């Protein structure tokens, strides 16, 4: 019988009631008395010298409160990057200043050039049109390989080149890998593009800055996945506001997918300007602004080589990637193509030798940073595509080739510096074969062919590293922050509980799933437990939600805090029961003395903690509230196997997803309903990347796909029902819940199987197509067929 509460149950989400009735409180729903509105004048050219900015006419226009330019921000810090990567020569990456407002030079379309604060948004925008810019345009740097060439125009004149870093991993293996490739019986080579994407949470970003002169307190309401990170980065590095004078609030947030991790110029601006104009300042991004100011994702150009021996055992992998940073380094940009990408290049396979080279490039484009999966989709895509190509070249079954090379013994230390604690790749593959009905594919293909369609089956595996991350390790790798998390369990006198967590829920359902854990531990109903998140003034600390870390890291902190609470409560119970605390057991909300019928209820113990009349005051303090910080011992390693079946219309090249199946191993699962939902959404984003989404620039650095008119978002009729399964569970060995994380798996695991399926379909139709770059739009597929 499925449980109806606690760990493993799927209670209905409590947050849904407010979202379904229009009662959610998103940042744009916040309006503060006296608030002003800012309109940002954004660059419409990719690269230019700013000779002058004349704001005099604009300043005289109706409703203008104040106009700001780059000069106003000279004295404050730049937007910081949180991760310093060391290149393969031992030198730190090149790190340009990232100004809040462009000063002297424009480096991408959409960069803020001036900000007009007005009584109304329309007045601010009217005035912005009266600002006179004198610019000298410069050639735009767009293509990464051209940017790397000697003599290229530089995005930053004060840097030595457009190369942020040239990273080698593991550098010591470089020669051995080269040799293994020379010696191989067979080498499969694939050049591919991991297309640039725009995360596109449905809620555009919003920032509302407030300043209270009476107590010198700054408040920023913002659409963030991690309010404490914003407080730290903006307070310490940009504006110089100490933590106790800066409150960051992220209320209901309408999706993040990575792009709401980062600290953005608009947040710093609204906080700064609220003090300068002594009134609240509000900015609400339009979708058009979002396309040119939200950090983009992916954008890798890669060559991968897979070496095999005569028996098709993988002997070496070598990859060379150009990774786009855009014009500036966004918060985690530098870590994505390196530590979140190179470390996953072993995949699910026991390849003994691996070398990864990444050249991170500055270009005159919007900064690129983490987007759902962040580095891991790029690793998975190239590896699973080259394996598929190798299977075809060698004439072997792609599933069998994978199985033959699976890692089967754990823990497993990869040649790319990580240790998989646990897993069972055979189990997820077997489960996939079952739920995807791979045995029935031939009959389905025959049916499609009868209807004039080409049908293809694509399969891939994936592994990812979640639960980022052990602080001492990431510190060595260049992270400028610890990556623990924190929780406070506050038990009220009558026994109800508020849990203040550093993780932020913006669709993941923490308000429902986190109480399931506490309920399981204490044995009280879930409705006695509330989760508080998203406000630095209410929660102890936290690094926020990204990298599928919420439950593995913050959930572990919550468990640790709850354990402290329970230990203390047992001491109180022991006192009340006149027993030794070692003999006290807690079950179903009752403390009892082992082997007796003596017991006291949870609520009586909690009341005693706050009304300590009969209480061991000499030994323990009154009250019942504990905080824990949890720093993970290792990453977690969710893994799985995915299958996609497509039909291709040979007349038009249009690809239709007919079936999609996902078998995941997430370790223990707290709420299966929510986990499945996370996988569904990830798959849709992965299919979107594979078939639809394409953030494109022209050679002048103009963003071509700058709205939903040209950037194809997956819609309901682009997608089928999915078949997802997470019954294969090898619990994580090093966190208390045995959980691994599920937020990104779908987006990581799905693109290769879609491409593999399309290639399979075309091959079945006699077209010798070995690769099509994503997105596989109808026109690209048609052209590939025509050129085959």
């Amino acid at each position, binding site marked *: 019988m499925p449980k109806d509460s606690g760990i493993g149950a799927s209670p209905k989400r409590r947050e849904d009631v407010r979202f379904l009735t229009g009662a959610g409180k998103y940042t744009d729903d916040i309006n503060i008395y006296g608030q002003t509105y800012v309109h940002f004048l954004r660059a419409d050219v990719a690269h230019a010298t700013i000779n002058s900015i004349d704001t005099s006419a604009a300043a005289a226009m109706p409703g203008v409160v104040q106009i700001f330019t780059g000069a106003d921000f000279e004295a404050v810090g730049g937007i910081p990057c949180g991760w310093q990567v060391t290149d393969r020569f031992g030198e730190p990456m090149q790190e340009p200043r990232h100004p809040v407002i462009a000063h002297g030079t424009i480096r991408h379309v959409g960069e803020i050039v001036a900000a007009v604060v007005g009584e109304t948004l329309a007045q601010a925008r009217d005035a912005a049109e009266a600002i006179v810019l004198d610019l000298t345009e410069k050639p735009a740097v767009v293509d990464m390989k051209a940017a790397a060439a000697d003599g290229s125009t530089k995005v930053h004149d004060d840097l030595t080149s457009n190369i942020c870093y040239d990273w080698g991993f593991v550098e010591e293996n470089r020669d051995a890998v080269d040799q293994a490739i020379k010696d191989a019986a067979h080498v499969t080579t694939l050049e591919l593009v991991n297309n640039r994407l725009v995360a596109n949470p449905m809620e555009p970003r919003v920032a509302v800055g407030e300043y209270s002169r009476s107590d010198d307190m700054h408040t920023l309401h913002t659409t963030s996945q991690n309010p404490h990170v914003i407080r730290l980065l903006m307070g310490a590095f940009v504006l110089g506001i100490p933590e106790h004078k800066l409150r960051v609030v992220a209320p209901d*947030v309408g999706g993040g997918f990575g792009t709401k991790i980062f600290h953005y110029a608009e947040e710093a601006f609204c906080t700064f300007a609220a003090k300068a104009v002594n009134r609240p300042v509000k900015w609400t991004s339009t*979708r058009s602004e979002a396309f040119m100011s939200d950090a983009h994702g992916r954008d890798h150009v890669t060559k991968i080589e897979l070496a095999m021996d005569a028996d098709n055992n993988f002997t070496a992998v070598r990859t060379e990637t150009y990774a786009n940073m855009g014009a500036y380094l966004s918060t985690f940009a530098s870590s994505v193509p390196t530590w979140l990408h190179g470390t996953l290049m072993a995949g699910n396979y026991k390849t003994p030798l691996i070398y990864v080279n990444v050249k991170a490039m500055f270009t005159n484009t919007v900064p690129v940073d983490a987007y759902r999966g962040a580095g891991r989709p790029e690793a998975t895509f190239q590896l699973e595509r080259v394996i598929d190509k190798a299977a075809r070249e060698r004439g072997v079954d792609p599933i069998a080739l994978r199985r033959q090379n699976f890692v089967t013994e754990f823990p497993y230390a990869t040649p790319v510096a990580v240790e998989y604690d646990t897993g069972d790749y055979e189990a997820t593959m077997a489960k996939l074969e079952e739920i995807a009905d791979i045995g029935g594919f031939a009959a389905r293909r025959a049916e499609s062919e009868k209807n004039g369609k080409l049908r293809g089956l694509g399969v891939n595996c994936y592994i990812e590293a979640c639960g980022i991350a052990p602080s001492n390790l990431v510190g060595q790798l260049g992270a400028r922050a610890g990556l623990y998390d924190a929780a406070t369990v506050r038990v009220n006198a009558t026994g109800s509980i508020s849990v203040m967590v550093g993780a932020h829920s913006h669709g993941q359902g923490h308000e429902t799933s986190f109480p399931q854990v506490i309920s399981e531990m204490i044995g009280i109903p879930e409705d006695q437990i509330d989760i508080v998140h998203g406000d630095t003034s209410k929660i102890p600390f936290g690094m926020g939600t990204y990298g599928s870390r919420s439950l593995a890291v913050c959930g572990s902190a919550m468990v640790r805090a709850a354990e402290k609470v329970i230990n203390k409560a047992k001491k109180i119970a022991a006192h009340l029961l006149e027993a030794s605390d070692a003999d006290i057991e807690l079950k179903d909300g009752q403390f009892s003395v082992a082997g007796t019928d003596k017991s006291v209820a949870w609520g009586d113990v909690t009341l005693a903690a706050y009304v300590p009349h009969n209480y061991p005051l000499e030994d323990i303090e009154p009250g019942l509230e504990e905080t824990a910080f949890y720093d993970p011992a290792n990453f977690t390693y969710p893994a799985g196997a995915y299958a996609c079946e497509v039909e291709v219309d040979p007349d038009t090249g249009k690809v239709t997803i007919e079936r999609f199946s996902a078998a995941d191993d997430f370790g223990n699962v707290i709420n299966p309903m929510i986990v499945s*939902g996370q996988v569904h959404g990830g798959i849709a984003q992965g299919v979107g990347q594979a078939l639809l989404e394409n953030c494109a620039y022209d050679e002048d650095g103009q963003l071509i796909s700058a709205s939903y*008119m040209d950037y194809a978002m997956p819609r309901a009729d682009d997608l089928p029902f999915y078949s997802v399964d997470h019954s294969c569970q090898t619990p994580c060995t090093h966190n208390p819940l045995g959980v691994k994380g599920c937020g990104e798996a779908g987006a990581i695991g799905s693109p290769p199987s879609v491409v593999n399926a399309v290639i399979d379909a075309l091959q079945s139709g006699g077209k010798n197509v070995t690769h099509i770059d994503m997105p596989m739009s109808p026109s690209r597929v048609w052209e590939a067929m025509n050129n085959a």
Partner: protein
Amino acid sequence: MASVSMTVNGREVSGDVEGRTLLSSFLRDDLRLTGTHVGCDTSQCGACVVHVNGAAVKACTMFAVEADGAEVATIEGEANADGSLSVIQQAFQDHHGLQCGFCTPGMVMSAAALLKENPTPTEAEIREYLEGNICRCTGYHNIVKAIMAASGQDVAAIAAE
């Protein structure tokens, strides 16, 4: 400025608006009915769908003055009179048809319009009808399932959870 009057969720309201004031901003900024969301500026995402005289429209692509005299229904008026969730809202909760909640008001309003026109839509009809409502979280699986369930169809055979 022009004055407009309309009925919103059964209540008479009025206000002074500019010609360029969109129905979405009249609802959000003047009436403080912030359940109607704005997710794009090209009339594609559908987070702002409301009903005007019974028909689903994108409130961000209609001027407030054009709704003068109209009956407007928003997400805030969808629940039952006693505050309990409507059949459609309940189905969305039962089948996890929402995650971040931002597209949800538009989805529910579109679903309500669909079921009024077509009380028992097929999966394909639902997917086609939702062409103008973009969700980035759910991959649509549970939205489609919820709407089928709300129309009384048996969804047990659709992948569980």
